[in-house]
């Protein structure tokens, strides 16, 4: 029977089997497992059938907890049901998992195993999540490679049906879930052959149905609970045998042999490593390599981890074994050893002590941790572990792959050890997120895997930024199966797709002698050499590099590809790497272009073809000179004036050297300094805005909308210009407040991302030449030095006193220093201008609770944070707890602040005789509703502290420690719509009901942006999103309206691009309101498929068509007899389609399903009209004041 070879990643392999072998699938996005849900949803929308000829129902839930509930219910009602998850998502499923297992329900949960958020969140892979679920009663089956994922998904499904014990089928997040590999696909017949129809019928027979009524979920008492819990034992005892039976059946059909514990190595091995997951592949390959050199070693690969089959485990150990190292990809602080280690020790102890075992004596067993958060696990490390086992007193509870200079757990190893075979192509590609490098490389892997006899592997590393992100692609090709789940450290091909990377990265560090280096260079073959850094030149000479250049940007421009150089660089790779004969490669690329782009129209195919055809003529080999001649040296990663922590910790991380940081340099509790983006200077803008004071009307809209705080405004005394650099621009202040003073709008050229949103919103035209405005985009490179000097000077000009600023105006608000700056958010981000505004208005006294999502990533992903500090060292204190609990987390801040304030007031009162009545009265009665009030209170608190310092009493010391709480603090819970509308809604509702002064800011992009655009309940009707591939059929949830029903919550809905003054007003009112407030802020997003420079215009249209009402609901107005609701928008004046079809998320449906698009747009239009009618009716109600007149 012929089985096709396909090139897919681990997630697709799992979804491939899961979709075909289930009837109901409940999903929720979480990295790195989201793709399994996305593919299932896509296949369901395409009406693909499962192996029984029917399309599974795929439903998105509000959280993983919700998904688990739905899975539990569907299973109880008799459907074959599954879900996919990772990390904290799995933890949210745990309560239901106990139930599902306790009720002996056949089910499989597929897990892309990921780190748990502890001292910090990490999206990368390890086994902390699955290990947290090991007590639930689920069986746990590990897959070590992409092929195994497909196979084990089926084994888990088959086994659970027979065993009745539910399964977690897991594989390593990213390393396996995202590795692209060539695998042999299972056929539907294979699946049908392993899934016993009688067992499926039995599953249905156990279902809850009124036709055969039974009950489950009883409450039991001390008399029987214990015994009932023990009833399941036989089922667990049977699991290993059942799993092995299906593994054997699979082997009979497809030829791939697996065992629940699999031993590979010398039959007389003395040293053994026991490991689970992708690391097992590395250990196996290394062990084979070492064994071939005569070492008596072996490896036990654990596949069925729970139930742990002691007999099967012991049986496979060679009798000769003397020392065992057990590797756990997890961390349990305070434990005696990690779980797999403890299991192995217990298994050996039980067996050996019991006697009758083939092992002569108890081997020495040590345990170690490796690979947390996808930390590299290489053959060199494996060799290091085997080496350690040789020691008479091997280190126990060790770590491998890091340098632990604190508790000295880490093992040393020889980093140069390598087992890469000579006949394998190992290629590294440095690309920019936006240049299409990864997409092209995935394509190359597919071409080579599917059109040659070669095996292929692709793995892709991304950085933490969303704008200007660097990607590194690791591709292997070779004649034999590739079992190398680790990054390439000895490359025989390196491509650098962006010339600027040479300033920042040592791109040839991994290159071996004689390697090929392909560079996209604006400089031709005759001049490129002189533009390379000296260290790179020397390295090229030393390593005898073959050097090729192409000006891919020029070819892209000429062939109509714009900024996408992917096809061009891919063609170059095939042309110079020799992986395929050149003509064959070109034909394959073209055929692949047809496949990939054909559905997007002939014009797109044509321009890609043109690019391929033009490439070879522009690709040149450069002969290396005999010596390095360049005077260009690599610059330090951060400026020398950066603080010590930034120099020692931040800079290495930023420079890609974070792996080298020892334990001692990292904070013990996840606490990091703020205001660190200022040291990055990423220089990613091609063009920057340049101010033209002659035409500027000083409206400050540019500064307000700048997503990166890269346009600043200052008003200052003309005397400050005395030392100004020659090119520094200024103008006279227009208006009365600061008459006689100067104003400057200054661009931070090195921090700007070049989005152009500022120029788009600039209302001032150059009257002599109307193509220009008061801000115009100009190339960054020629201006870089000049503007760096200007910006440095600008920052030194003192900020204007906050007390005199009219903060409620746009112009005034922008004179406040942004304390959220230069984030790594997408260029043109629609969220960050709101955060920046919060930081300007309240940042010096704000605590921010940030839900997980885009804002927590660009806000808190190492190496740097955009949350900054003012000249006095004050600024937002920020933390991310979880995705779901942000509102409650913020409430916790508030409860603490209120309590400490209360305590401080009590102590001030109590100590009034020592403090002085005047100061006490002033402190306790302070009006802190504006900047002057805050300033005065800070002065009083400073005076109080001076006095307290001189008083040596318990109360004085206690009051001194909490005196700052006498100054008003501003608490913000901030997150996206996925949090507020879906997973966090319950908590958000609770906080709104609490009456406490928590300000909730919902950055509503109407989609789960951070995880790649999955639909939320905020997604509007008719918009296409993942999990809503056919266009969202239902309307957007009206969160604001729900909030208003409390009557005691300040509610505002805002859109900066539509009414910026209303935004500022709403933020100030919300913060002043002495109770809960919620601001729902329209945030345009890259996931909308729009021109990001025109994001504010998109916002305007959303309001004009009535999709996004602007309003403020201020409960304080009720006491004045006024209607609390004021509408800040007008009756819709453009059709919804005029707004919607400006955005790809809506428009794409008109191209894929025009009838559905038309129907949904009609409904959306109705929604907008009805919304207007409803809101205008609410706003027109007349309120009467007084006890009996609170209603309309």
């Amino acid at each position, binding site marked *: 029977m012929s089985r096709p070879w396909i090139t897919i990643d681990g997630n697709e392999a799992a979804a491939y089997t899961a979709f075909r072998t289930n009837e109901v699938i409940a999903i929720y996005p979480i*990295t*790195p497992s*989201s*793709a399994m849900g*996305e593919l299932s*949803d*896509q296949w369901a929308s*395409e009406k693909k059938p499962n192996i029984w000829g029917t399309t599974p129902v795929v439903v998105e839930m509000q959280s993983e907890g919700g998904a688990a509930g739905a899975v539990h219910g569907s299973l109880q009602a008799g459907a074959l049901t599954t879900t996919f998850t990772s990390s904290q998502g799995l933890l949210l499923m745990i309560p239901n998992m106990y139930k599902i297992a306790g009720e002996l329900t056949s089910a499989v949960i597929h897990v892309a195993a990921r780190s748990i958020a502890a001292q910090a969140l990490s*999206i990368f892979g390890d086994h902390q999540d699955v290990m947290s679920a090991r007590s639930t009663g689920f069986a746990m089956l590990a897959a070590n490679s992409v092929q195994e994922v497909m196979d084990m998904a089926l084994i888990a499904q088959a086994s659970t049906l027979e065993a009745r014990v539910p399964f977690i089928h897991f594989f390593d997040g*990213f390393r396996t879930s995202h590795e692209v590999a060539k695998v042999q696909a299972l056929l539907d017949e294979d699946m049908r052959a392993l899934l016993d129809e009688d067992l499926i019928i039995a599953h249905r027979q156990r279902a809850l149905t009124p036709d055969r009524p039974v009950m489950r979920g009883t409450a039991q008492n001390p008399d029987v609970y214990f015994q009932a819990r023990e009833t399941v034992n036989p089922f667990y005892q049977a699991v290993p045998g059942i799993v092995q039976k299906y593994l054997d059946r699979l082997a009979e059909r497809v030829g791939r042999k697996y065992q629940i514990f699999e031993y590979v190595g010398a039959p007389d091995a003395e040293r053994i490593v026991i490991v689970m997951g992708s690391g097992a592949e590395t250990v196996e390959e290394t062990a084979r390599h070492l064994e071939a050199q005569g070492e008596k070693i072996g490896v036990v690969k654990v596949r069925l981890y729970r139930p742990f089959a002691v007999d099967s485990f012991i049986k496979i150990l060679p009798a000769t074994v003397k020392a065992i190292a057990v590797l756990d990809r997890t961390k349990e602080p305070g434990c005696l050893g990690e779980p797999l280690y403890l299991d192995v020790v217990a298994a050996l102890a039980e067996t050996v002590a019991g006697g009758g075992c083939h092992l002569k004596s108890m081997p020495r067993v040590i345990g170690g941790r490796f690979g947390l958060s996808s930390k590299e696990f290489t053959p060199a490390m494996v060799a290091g572990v085997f080496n350690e086992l040789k020691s008479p007193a091997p280190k126990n509870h060790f770590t491998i792959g890091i340098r632990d200079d604190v508790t000295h757990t880490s093992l040393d190893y020889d980093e140069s050890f390598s087992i890469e075979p000579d006949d394998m192509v190992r290629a590294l590609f440095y690309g*920019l*997120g*936006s240049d*299409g*490098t*990864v*997409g092209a490389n*995935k394509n190359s892997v597919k071409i080579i895997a599917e059109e040659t006899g070669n095996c292929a592997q692709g793995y*892709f590393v*991304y950085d933490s*930024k*969303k704008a200007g*992100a660097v*990607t590194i692609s690791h591709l292997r090709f070779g004649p034999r199966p590739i079992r190398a789940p680790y990054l390439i450290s000895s490359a025989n091909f390196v491509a650098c797709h962006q010339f600027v990377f040479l300033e920042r990265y040592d791109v040839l560090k991994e290159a071996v002698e004689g390697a090929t280096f392909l560079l996209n260079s604006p400089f031709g073959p005759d001049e490129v050499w002189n533009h390379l850094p000296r260290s790179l030149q020397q390295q090229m000479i030393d390593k005898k590099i073959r050097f090729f250049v192409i000006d891919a940007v020029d070819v892209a421009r000429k062939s*109509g590809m*714009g900024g*996408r150089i992917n096809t061009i660089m891919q063609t170059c790779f095939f042309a110079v790497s020799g992986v395929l004969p050149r003509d064959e490669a070109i034909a394959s690329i073209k055929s692949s272009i047809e496949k990939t*782009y054909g*559905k*997007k*129209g*002939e*014009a*797109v195919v044509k*321009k890609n073809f043109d690019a391929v055809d033009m490439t070879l003529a522009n690709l040149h080999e450069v002969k290396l000179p005999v010596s390095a001649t360049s005077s260009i040296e690599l610059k330090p990663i951060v400026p020398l004036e950066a603080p010590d922590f930034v120099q020692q910790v931040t800079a290495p991380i930023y420079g890609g050297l974070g792996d080298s940081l020892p334990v001692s340099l990292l904070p013990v509790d996840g606490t990091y300094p703020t205001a660190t983006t200022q040291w990055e200077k990423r220089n990613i803008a091609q063009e920057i805005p340049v101010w033209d004071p002659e035409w500027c009307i000083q409206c400050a809209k540019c500064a307000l909308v700048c997503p990166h705080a890269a346009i600043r405004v200052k008003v200052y005394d003309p005397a400050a210009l005395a030392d100004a650099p020659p090119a520094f621009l200024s103008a006279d202040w227009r208006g009365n407040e600061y008459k006689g003073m100067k104003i400057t709008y200054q661009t931070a050229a090195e921090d700007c991302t070049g989005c152009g949103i500022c120029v788009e919103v600039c209302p001032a*035209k150059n009257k002599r030449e*109307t193509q220009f405005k008061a801000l115009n985009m100009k190339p960054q490179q020629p201006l870089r030095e000049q503007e760096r000097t200007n910006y440095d000077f600008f920052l030194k000009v003192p900020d204007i006193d906050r007390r005199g600023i009219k903060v409620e105006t746009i112009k005034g608000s922008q004179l406040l220093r942004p304390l959220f700056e230069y984030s790594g958010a*997408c260029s043109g981000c629609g969220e960050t201008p709101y955060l920046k505004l919060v930081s300007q208005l309240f940042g010096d006294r704000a605590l921010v609770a940030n839900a997980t999502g885009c804002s927590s*990533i660009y806000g808190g992903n190492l190496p740097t944070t955009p949350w900054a500090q003012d000249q006095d060292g004050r600024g937002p204190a920020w933390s991310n707890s979880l995705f779901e609990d942000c509102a409650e987390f913020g409430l916790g801040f508030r409860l603490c602040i209120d309590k400490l304030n209360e305590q401080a007031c009590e102590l001030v009162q109590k100590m009034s005789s020592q403090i002085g009545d005047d100061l006490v009265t002033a402190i306790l009665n302070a009006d802190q509703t504006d900047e002057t009030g805050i300033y005065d209170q800070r002065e009083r608190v400073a005076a109080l502290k001076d006095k307290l310092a001189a008083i040596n009493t318990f109360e004085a010391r206690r009051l001194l420690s909490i005196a700052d709480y006498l100054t008003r603090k501003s608490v913000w819970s901030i997150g996206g719509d996925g949090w507020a509308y879906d997973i966090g809604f319950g908590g958000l509702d609770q906080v709104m009901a609490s009456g406490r002064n928590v300000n909730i800011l919902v950055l509503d992009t109407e989609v789960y*942006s*951070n*995880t*790649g*655009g999955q639909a939320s309940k905020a997604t509007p009707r008719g918009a*296409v*999103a*993942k999990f809503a*591939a056919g266009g969202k059929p239902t309307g957007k949830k009206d969160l604001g309206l729900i909030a208003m029903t409390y009557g005691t919550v300040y509610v505002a809905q805002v859109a900066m691009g539509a009414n910026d003054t209303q935004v500022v007003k709403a933020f100030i009112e919300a913060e002043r309101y002495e109770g809960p407030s919620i601001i729902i802020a329209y945030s345009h997003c*890259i*996931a909308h*498929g*729009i021109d990001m420079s025109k994001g504010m215009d998109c916002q305007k249209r959303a309001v004009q068509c009535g999709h996004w009402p602007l309003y403020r609901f201020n409960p304080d107005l009720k006491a004045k007899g006024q209607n609390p609701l004021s509408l800040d928008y007008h009756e819709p004046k453009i059709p919804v389609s005029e707004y919607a079809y400006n955005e*790809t998320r809506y*428009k*794409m*449906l008109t*191209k*894929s*399903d*025009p009838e559905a698009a038309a129907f949904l747009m009609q409904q959306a239009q109705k929604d907008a009209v009805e919304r207007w009618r409803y809101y205008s009716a609410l706003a027109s109600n007349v309120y009467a004041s007084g006890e009996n007149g609170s209603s309309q």
Partner: protein
Amino acid sequence: MDLSTTFMGIKLKSPLVPSAAGPLSKEIGMMRSLEDAGASAIVMYSLFEEQIRHEAAELDHYLDRSTYAHAEALTYFPDLGQYNLGPDEYLNHLSKAKEALDIPVIGSLNGVSVGGWTDYATKIEQAGADGLEINLYFIPANPELSGLDVEQLYVDVLTEIKKAVKIPVTMKLSPYFSSLYSMARKLEQAGANGLTLFNRFYQPDIDLEELTVKPHLLLSSNYEMRLPLRWIAILYGNVKMSLAATSGITDGLSVLKMLMVGADVTMVCSEILRHGPHRLAEIETEVRQWMEEHEYESVDMMKGSISQKSCAEPAAFERANYMKTLQSFDRYRLA
């Protein structure tokens, strides 16, 4: 009374044809209403060359942008499989229109360059169009381009299309040729089956508040029929191609005038946009009433009866007519 006429060899029940405009042909319902109101054929809205190229490039850009740039968001949109882009959507619509209507449907291509057209013309033919209108919306703003170059562009495009299709092709022209008569001849030699006179270029306007150039659609008014009226009168009988009058056809009288100078069909747009499809029926009634009152039995009887060839004062369509107008103006002023 016989209102029937023939346009590019296609027999039509009347000379009333809605011209190429989105609002008149983007929805099948509207097209049905026009058929019910008496339309004898419909010219579909134009498939724009730029639309084909731009739409595909735009979708490609936004679906691909920022993909594989961040570990958590490798893509932002689901893969919806095949997209109906550029010609696909248009062709599907044309096929549906053909199914839904009994009257002939004429496709329309609008573009500015040679190359790439052939395919679209063929596809329009395959989708069932009864004829094709080519609209070269071209402003010769390039100083290197001579009048002859511009004329050659029209001829080249037409030649390319005629090689590809068997259905009749009409060229929609602007009035801005140095020698329209000569141009008409060239097009006839290149195989044109008809001329549609004239294209109204949308002239830009200025937004003084925004200091921007803005497109501004002005619906045509009756006086604009004078220009095509003159040229149809001049061309009638001198070319074998069918002649379609468009611009300023606002009532039955304008239809009659156009027929009398030699138009085979009259294309109506602004008037329908102003009043709705039923206006077409009203215009037909006006035509019928006038013909009845003036004892005309058929359109054929009046067609070309006041063309330059047939009228009593041939010079009235040329320079002498200008003199006459001035004189009449002077008389008006003096009065």
